């Protein structure tokens, strides 16, 4: 409180009945008071401060009473007076208690429900209702109201008169306050104790991609995504903070490193349901989520964020939240784009002249001559013919088209969103192949008038129709360039009398995959009393894959003697339901806030699959009608059931937004484990200290606007293994022998294996400088995964090649993650923002007792990363003989290195570091975003050579550097066609470090330029919003990689696409 100087003025005055005659003009009150005192016997009691802000008075009275004069003086003054004894006591008018009512809206005039309205002085708080309305009674005049809402900029406003206030909150430009979705709730960067990376709809929508994973690539620290093929619908390898499990698809096992995907609260399968029929391989399941329906993707990385997912959180969690309806006028949004794509890179191959030279040289080297009936390329085919098979196979232009529309709106109580989209992406292969996707997305939210009952319903349906050739035609670039024409004069496939295994038969053998994905989620909550909310989340997903692969007679090589066409079909579906009852309790006392969550999960996944062969179609046109087959042959019929039950809890405590504590725990039970091994407990603690809120920090580092140190430690697990592995069962075979369907042992069984445990530790610093214009995050993590659940390799003499078991191997992932967000320029017309991310991962196999007795010995080395190359030591080409040579274990030159003694070369492969740089420019109505992806990695180029150079397969031009005569020093051994040098070649190319190469690349991953029509034009056109844009993906790649594409390596390169589109909002 201010010190008040009290001036007590005591005057002797005349009696009250005395008449007063006074005339003043614009006189200050105190001078008037003094004159009045002279004419009466009353004295004024007041302080000079009380008179502050009073206005001077002008009047003229004759024979007036004291009361009359005082009334004139105090009129419209913030003062009151009272007469006691002979004193006139002046008081400041007590500021009037107001009843403040108002409505909080966002920039689009849509009400913001749940926004916090706080009185700055007293910390009294209320929240807005679904209409955005709030009322605060008994508010002193001129009190400052602080209005805040997660995701919006906080606004302060002064309470003045009894009028309704409309407050518009701007979307937060401060990234610290953007909403982040976490397990069973939300948080912000500012108040989070864990590590969560977020990608918002605006960034996703800038990318013309069909799979959300493609949009995530390179964007988030710690999330390494590699696109495995450029064929639409194909696979991705996704790892959050490295490889935790020894089980990896890369070494031919069931993948154990997939993150947990959760879409609107419902777990979504990470493993493909499709067979490996088409050119894309197994289709990626995330392809069945329309990226444009996504509001945000949140990547949970550390123990604090993932332990609440217990047994499924080991490899991190990716939360996908779809778009929701918002209150406001009904809004219709239409968006369409189309464009084209070609492969990012081509390989230089030999032309016919060079090819024939290679072949003849090979025969010379071998002292042999071409053999009739074998060496067709030299003796049978037209050697003047030249076909660029690469161009024929993958040189086409893919066409992309995308249309979508949505309607949204609603009032304060009920909001809705209904949208649909269609995306078509053809391939660079010849022929009419494409991946088509139609999607529907619906959302309805309702809240009762009294705000206590809430209901959210989201449903989506995606139909994906993939029509692809059966094989990736990239692989045919090794056809001899003089191979015959693909079609004969009558337009039929040319088999050239059986001398040409015509790969264009693939064009007649379409692989059709139809995937229907249904996703439904409902959240019902009821506020029992303020602070306690009961909530249940109900979810259901069904993914159904129906595939067929047709082999019409016209496509079949006559050499195999087929008399009719045949088809393969597979049907596979998985259904998941999940129920998660929860109770949330919130308590705010003074500066402390406590949040408690308890809940439980019940989940069941059931899967069914069948696959069949159908034979004996009388006509190729009937191939899709299985009723026309004369014989059916069941390849497989499977059923799986997985059930999961859990109880979980979280206690979060926040003191003054300064000290944050977060404790999570979960008890999990899974049917994938045998009796007695089904349950396990997981838990984590996260702490954060926002030191920038300490008063001393403001003095020490005034430019630091935000600073937080956080740490977390905890455990999570993995049950990514097959179902029923603990059961001893017999399964039917697909061969019916004499009318009996046989039964065979399904597996070796082990009832004793248990959970894989991953202990995660993280320390991080989040900071903001210069009023948060520069935001940075530095995190260090160390995850240790033990009790590895692996198929322990067994010799085939046991009847099987592995048995599911725990192994005491310990895998460690450590790493540094950096991210930097800066607002470089911010003026009314021009904004320039930059985001830089960098991840430096390290992976190490810390221990693996008895590794030498397992086949993992050939893949892994203790003390080295899991992703290493092991092999022979390459020693170039012997200048005398022209044959590859190697160093044996003692360092001596040898041409036949021995396994395992000489198999001693090890080198880390895979990413050394990866990251990206995003620059966003906005100038008036123009917006330009440029994203550059950076990956530094060692890869291999053994895919470059698909066959021994010299044999009847085309080769990349680099083979022209081969050894030709004694004394030559070169890196490629002499041509050979009788396979006598095959061993040396395959040792060099597949088993030695010769294949290792720099596969680093810098890629202009995304470029998006858009123009928003100015207001005036929009009004003329009667549209709310109109945006025209151009987008490009994978536009430019800088790399030293000698093969096709450094990311997909051996298979179809990524597609560089350029699209243009328009978005209209009505």
């Amino acid at each position, binding site marked *: 409180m201010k010190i008040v100087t009290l001036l007590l003025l005591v005057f002797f005055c005349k009696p009250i009945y005395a008449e007063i005659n006074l005339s003043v003009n614009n006189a200050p009150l105190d001078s008037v008071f003094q004159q009045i005192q002279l004419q009466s016997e009353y004295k004024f009691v007041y302080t000079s401060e009380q008179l502050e802000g009073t206005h001077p008075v002008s009047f003229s009275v004759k024979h007036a009473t004291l009361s009359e004069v005082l009334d004139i003086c105090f009129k419209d003054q913030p003062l009151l007076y009272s007469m006691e004894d002979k004193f006139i006591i002046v008081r400041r008018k007590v500021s009037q208690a107001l009843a403040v009512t108002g409505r909080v809206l966002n920039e689009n005039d849509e009400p913001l429900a749940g926004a916090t309205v706080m009185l700055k002085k007293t910390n009294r708080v209320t929240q807005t209702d679904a209409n955005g309305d709030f009322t605060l009674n008994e508010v002193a005049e001129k009190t400052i109201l602080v209005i805040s809402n997660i995701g919006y900029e906080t606004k302060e406003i002064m309470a003045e008169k009894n009028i309704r206030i409309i407050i518009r909150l701007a979307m937060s430009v401060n990234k610290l306050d953007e909403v982040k979705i976490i397990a069973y709730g939300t948080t912000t960067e500012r108040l989070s104790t864990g590590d969560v990376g977020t990608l918002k709809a605006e960034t996703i929508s800038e990318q013309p991609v069909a799979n959300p994973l493609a949009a995530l690539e390179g964007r988030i620290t710690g999330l390494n995504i590699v696109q495995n093929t450029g064929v639409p619908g194909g696979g991705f390898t996704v790892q959050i903070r490295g490889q935790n499990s020894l089980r990896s698809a890369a070494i031919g096992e069931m993948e154990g490193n997939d993150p947990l995907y959760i879409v609107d609260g419902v777990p979504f399968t990470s493993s493909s349901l499709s067979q490996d029929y088409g050119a894309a391989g197994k289709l990626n399941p995330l392809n069945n989520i329309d990226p444009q329906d996504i509001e945000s993707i949140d990547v949970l990385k550390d123990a604090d964020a993932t332990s609440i997912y217990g047994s499924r959180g080991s490899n991190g969690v990716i939360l996908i939240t779809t778009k929701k309806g918002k209150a406001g006028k009904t809004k219709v949004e239409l968006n369409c784009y189309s464009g084209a794509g070609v492969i990012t890179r081509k390989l230089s191959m030999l032309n016919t002249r060079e090819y024939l030279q290679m072949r003849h040289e090979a025969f010379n080297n071998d002292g042999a001559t071409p053999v009739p009936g074998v060496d067709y390329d030299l003796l049978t085919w037209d050697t003047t013919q030249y076909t660029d098979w690469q161009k024929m196979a993958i040189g086409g232009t893919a066409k992309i088209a995308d249309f979508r529309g949505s309607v949204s709106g609603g009032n304060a109580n009920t909001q809705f969103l209904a949208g649909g989209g269609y995306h078509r992406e053809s391939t660079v292969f010849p022929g009419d192949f494409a991946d088509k996707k139609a999607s529907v997305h619906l959302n309805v939210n309702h809240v009762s008038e009294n705000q206590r009952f809430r209901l959210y319903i989201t449903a989506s349906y995606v139909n994906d129709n993939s029509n692809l050739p059966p094989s990736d035609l990239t692989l045919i670039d090794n056809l001899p360039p003089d191979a015959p024409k693909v079609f004969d004069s009558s337009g039929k496939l040319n088999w050239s009398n059986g001398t040409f295994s015509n790969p264009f038969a693939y064009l007649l053998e379409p692989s059709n995959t139809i995937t229907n994905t249904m996703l439904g989620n409902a959240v019902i909550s009821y506020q029992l009393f303020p602070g306690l909310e009961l909530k249940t989340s109900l979810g259901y997903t069904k993914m159904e894959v129906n595939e067929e692969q047709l082999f019409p007679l016209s496509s079949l090589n006559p050499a195999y003697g087929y008399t009719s066409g*045949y088809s393969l079909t597979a049907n596979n579906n998985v259904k998941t339901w999940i129920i998660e*009852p929860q109770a949330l309790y919130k308590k705010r006392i003074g500066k402390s806030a406590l949040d408690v969550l308890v809940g439980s999960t019940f989940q069941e996944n059931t899967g069914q699959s069948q696959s069949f*062969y159908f034979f004996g179609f009388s006509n190729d046109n009937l191939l899709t009608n299985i009723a026309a087959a004369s014989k059916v042959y069941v390849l497989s019929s499977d059923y799986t059931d997985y059930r999961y039950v859990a*109880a979980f809890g979280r206690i979060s405590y926040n003191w003054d937004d300064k000290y944050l504590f977060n404790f999570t725990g979960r008890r999990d*039970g899974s049917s994938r484990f045998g009796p007695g091994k089904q349950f396990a407990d997981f838990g984590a603690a996260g702490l954060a200290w926002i030191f920038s809120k300490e008063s001393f920090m403001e003095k020490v580092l005034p430019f630091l606007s935000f600073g937080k140190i956080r740490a977390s430690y905890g455990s999570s697990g993995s049950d990514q293994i097959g179902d029923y592995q603990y059961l001893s069962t017999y399964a039917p075979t697909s061969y019916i022998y004499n009318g*009996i369907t*046989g039964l065979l042992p399904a597996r070796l069984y082990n009832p004793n294996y248990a959970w894989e445990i991953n202990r995660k530790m993280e320390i991080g610093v989040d900071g903001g400088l210069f009023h948060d214009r520069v935001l940075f995050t530095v995190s260090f993590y160390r995850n240790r995964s033990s009790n590895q659940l692996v198929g322990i390799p067994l010799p085939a003499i046991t*009847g099987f090649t592995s048995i599911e078991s725990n192994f005491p191997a310990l895998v460690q992932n450590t790493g540094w993650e950096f991210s930097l967000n800066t607002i470089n320029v911010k003026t009314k017309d021009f904004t320039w923002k930059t985001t830089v991310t960098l991840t430096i991962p390290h992976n190490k196999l810390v221990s693996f007792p008895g590794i030498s007795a397992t086949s993992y010995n050939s893949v892994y080395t203790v003390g080295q990363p899991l992703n290493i190359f092991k092999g022979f030591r390459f020693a170039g080409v012997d200048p005398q003989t022209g044959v590859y040579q190697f160093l044996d274990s003692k360092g001596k030159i040898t041409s036949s290195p021995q*396994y395992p003694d000489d198999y001693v070369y090890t080198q880390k492969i895979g990413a050394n570091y990866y990251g990206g740089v995003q620059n966003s420019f906005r100038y008036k109505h123009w917006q330009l975003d440029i994203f550059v992806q950076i990956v530094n990695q060692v890869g291999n180029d053994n895919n470059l050579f698909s066959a021994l150079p010299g044999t009847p397969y085309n080769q990349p031009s680099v083979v022209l550097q081969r050894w030709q005569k004694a004394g030559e020093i070169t890196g490629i051994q002499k041509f050979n066609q009788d396979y006598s040098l095959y061993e040396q070649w395959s040792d060099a190319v597949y088993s030695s470090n010769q294949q290792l190469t720099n596969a680093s690349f810098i890629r202009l991953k995304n470029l998006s330029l858009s123009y928003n029509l100015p207001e005036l034009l929009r009004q003329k056109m009667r549209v709310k919003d109109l945006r025209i844009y151009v987008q490009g993906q994978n536009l430019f790649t800088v790399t030293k990689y000698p093969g096709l594409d450094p990311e997909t390596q051996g298979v179809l390169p990524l597609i560089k696409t350029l699209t243009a589109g328009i978005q209209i909002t009505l």
Partner: protein
Amino acid sequence: MRKKYHPHHLLLSMVGLLLNLAGGCAKFIDIKPPTTQLVTSSVFASDAAATAAMTGIYGNMSGSHGFAGQLTGSTSLLLGLYADELENFSTNQNQAAFYTNALSAANTDVSSDLWAQPYQDIYDANAVIEGLAGSSGVSDPVKNELTGEAKFIRAFCYFYLVNFFGEIPLITSTNYQANAVAARNTSAQVYDQIVTDLQDAQNLLPDDYSISDGERIRPNKAAASALLARVYLFTNDWTDAEAASNAVISDPLYSLPALDSVFLANSAEAIWQFKPVLPNINTTEGNIFILTTTPQFVALSNQVLQAFEPEDLRRTDWVDSITVGTNTYYYPFKYKVKTGTTLTEYSMVLRLGEQYLIRAEARAKQGNVFGAQSDLNMIRQRAGLPPTADSTADELAVAILHERQVELFTEWGHRWFDLKRTDNADAVMEIVTPLKGGSWNTDFQLFPIPKSEILVDQQLTQNPGY
């Protein structure tokens, strides 16, 4: 007075409730076995399911197991290439290595088709033997029948394994912990086990084929005897070889039909055949060998073509050719059906012709020249050839080896095994291998133990030369 509830109490009771709910639902995750599979205990609880477990082995052998006849991984094809019976036309490196006698320990045809698959069948047979031994739900006749069949299959697989690889681990239980560290047993030990199993099978198996409605597709007593005769022949036990083959030859169920009927389903010559299970084709032999254009896999070698005597009907009945452009390719034509869904031919495993040749050889080795001649002439006579002119035991031994070449060509690797067991392999291969573009080494008589196996089971050792 109304009791005032306190939020904390409610919260605590909620937590308790939820935890109870989860705890009480431990049962929730006790799932039933998959509806598409049977738990092992119920397999050996009924005659039908137990029979299906045995049938599964035949289905696998006939349908997907290379060594037993599946397509390009078959013993007939790979060993035909390895010896001097087939010419390679495939660009597949694994197959080409068989042709040039240049196998590596990493060859996947070796590790999968010739090693892992027979061992898988052995595991399955061991599981049947163990399952039946502990079963009370299977009737005694079925139990005997199936045990006999399983033992027969186990012996059959070991016969091929020991001849492919030499010393091999002898696995007779399903205990994977013990089996995973098994070392190689001597060939004698393996043969002892084979003989024991086949003798048990002789006792357990029925005389006829009534169990499969007359179809000769499950081994019976004669099959056990026939394989036993071959085993005795390979171990130079001439008396027992003669006795065992005698038992089959004297069985009226079997006779020598005309050349074009030998490989028909349930032909009079068949002792044991695999019924085809793959769609769209009859036998894989017919499917692979018969040419309609330039060969994609193999064609018949010159060595086989030249081995036929001029009048030999097998040269015309069992060999055919196709001319593409100026090139003529010959192919084995024992099986006449390349594709087709109506089954007329079954894949022959054991047939009477071989038994005559076994007895002929056993008799010749014991000095019974007349007996040997008459058995040999049975085969020659059917092929339209005059009786043999050879009249000494040694001459006859050579003549029988030659007769086996032209009678049993491209069947089950007979030629390769004959070259080996008669010590002719080095002499023949030193000429043939260079013609095929390779170079011969006597170590190559045994195939390499797969590299992947030695890696995992460190008790295993590699054969010399690899």
